[in-house]
């Protein structure tokens, strides 16, 4: 459980973070969304003390982060940034081994952990491990950055626009990977992004920031259906609202008994995917893989709160 209590960070007259209080549940993915200058990156850096607060404090599992020396704290928190910041003079393997080395892990354990992480992120340990960052592609560098952050099995992972530099195809895959990793490792993730669609897709809860304050902190469905202010509503946008809302609903919630013809959909697919398939195939109803079916009418009904 991560607690932000009355957190403020001022730079002279500028209130980069203005009296923010949030409670983040362990094992959840929380997105902090806002436009540039909203203070979201500052807020993130207050958690691992890259920036110190002007007032207020941060607790992890009830303990104030200020009670621990900063370097020690940061070794327990993973950190991923948009430009990944890989050390150019070290191999990929050594980059990933950074924190385990700082913690004094035995060499064999480090070696195994590096291989494990590279494989987890679909990178071949034998070929990628000995390479230097400048020899990697953008997508590979991003994945190595994530591997490096996860190396010491942190309970908390902080990410600042981690997928911003990737093209749309890679971005989707990277987001899938993140969800999969989170499922496997159960890490608490705090993710900063300016992309609302990404936030809706990934998060258990979203905090919308503007001018240093949190305007709304709620589940994605609530952000969509009951935006707390005009700003939040503008951020979501009216254009894709219904489809985004549908993307939060798995078909297992809308299945009804019965048969239908056509290509079966998975139970885990979202209502948005189902509606897209039905429009494209010009069908009114489609079957599900494990039995049952879903109708277009049910989808359309589910599309509004």
């Amino acid at each position, binding site marked *: 459980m991560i607690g932000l209590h009355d957190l403020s960070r001022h730079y002279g007259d500028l209130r980069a973070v203005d009296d923010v209080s949030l409670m983040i549940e362990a094992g959840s993915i929380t997105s902090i969304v806002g436009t540039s200058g909203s203070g979201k990156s500052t807020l993130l850096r207050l958690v691992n003390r890259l920036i110190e607060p002007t007032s207020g404090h941060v607790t992890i599992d009830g303990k104030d982060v200020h009670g621990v020396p900063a*370097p020690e704290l940061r070794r327990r928190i993973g950190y991923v940034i948009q430009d990944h910041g890989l*050390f150019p003079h070290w191999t990929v393997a050594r980059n990933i081994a950074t924190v385990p080395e*700082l913690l004094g892990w035995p060499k064999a354990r480090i070696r195994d952990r590096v291989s494990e992480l590279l494989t987890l992120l679909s990178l071949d340990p034998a070929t990628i491990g000995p390479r230097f960052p400048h020899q990697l592609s953008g997508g590979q560098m991003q994945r190595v950055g994530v591997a490096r952050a996860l190396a010491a099995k942190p309970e908390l992972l902080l990410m600042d626009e981690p997928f911003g530099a990737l093209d749309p195809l890679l971005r989707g895959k990277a987001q899938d990977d993140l969800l999969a990793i989170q499922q496997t490792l159960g890490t608490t993730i705090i993710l900063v992004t300016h992309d609302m669609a990404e936030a809706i897709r990934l998060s258990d809860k979203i905090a919308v920031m503007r001018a240093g304050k949190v305007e709304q902190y709620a589940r994605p469905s609530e952000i969509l259906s009951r935006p707390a202010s005009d700003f939040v509503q503008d951020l979501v946008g009216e254009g894709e609202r219904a489809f985004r809302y549908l993307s939060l609903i798995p078909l297992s919630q809308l299945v009804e008994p019965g048969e239908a013809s056509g290509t079966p959909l998975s139970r885990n697919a979202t209502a948005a995917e189902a509606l897209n398939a039905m429009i494209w195939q010009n069908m009114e109803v489609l079957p599900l893989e494990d039995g049952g079916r879903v109708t277009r009418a049910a989808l359309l009904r589910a599309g509004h709160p």
Partner: protein
Amino acid sequence: MRGLSAALLVVLVGAFLVEPTIFTPLLAPLTPEGAPVIYDRADILSLTLAHLALVAGAMIPATFVAVTLGIFVQSPAGASFLPLSRSLTGFGQTFPPVAVLALTVPILGFGTWPTLLALFLYGLLPVFENTVAGLTGLSPTVVEAAKAMGMTPRQRLWRVELPLAFPLILQGIRISTLVSLSTATIGSVVAAKGLGEIIVAGLTSQNLSFVAQGGLLVAALAVLLAKVFDLVDQRIRPNSASG
């Protein structure tokens, strides 16, 4: 320069140091009537070693002090001295090496010590400047990443910042060393032991052969030393493509 020419130069220099009389026919045309062709007032090899010792004796402490100062000026404790250090290095660039030598003699008298001090002071600058440039020129993302991984400031300095700044620092050491090699010759005017002795002797006795021996030997040493620095630079480059 290519490896072959470097090897050839090494052979020539070695031959001259061991058995200079081989070169007599080449140098004879430059010698005035009746004067010795090869410098004979002292052993050329020992002069060469003394010269190199002078340069090393100045450059090694200069590197140590300059890099330490460069690190200090970058740290929070020393940051208030950064503008002053910038002005000083700017001023120091204008200070002619001869003037440094001239000003140390009244303090330390004649001989090797004033030359050593002058070479030390003058050698500080390029190394200091390049250390500061190297440390400030690091990618901020990489430095932040090092911090975020949980490195203490000292670990950051030794594991990330210094290794990445090293190519630039090496450039500074290279410039300093090559300039020192040349400036050390002037030290012989104030009786420092070195290859300048041969040149000065040639100037005073109007023996061009002496001037050529001393001058070309120093030049050859400079070229070879530059080659050594190049080799070291190449070895460390591929591992740090960009800061």
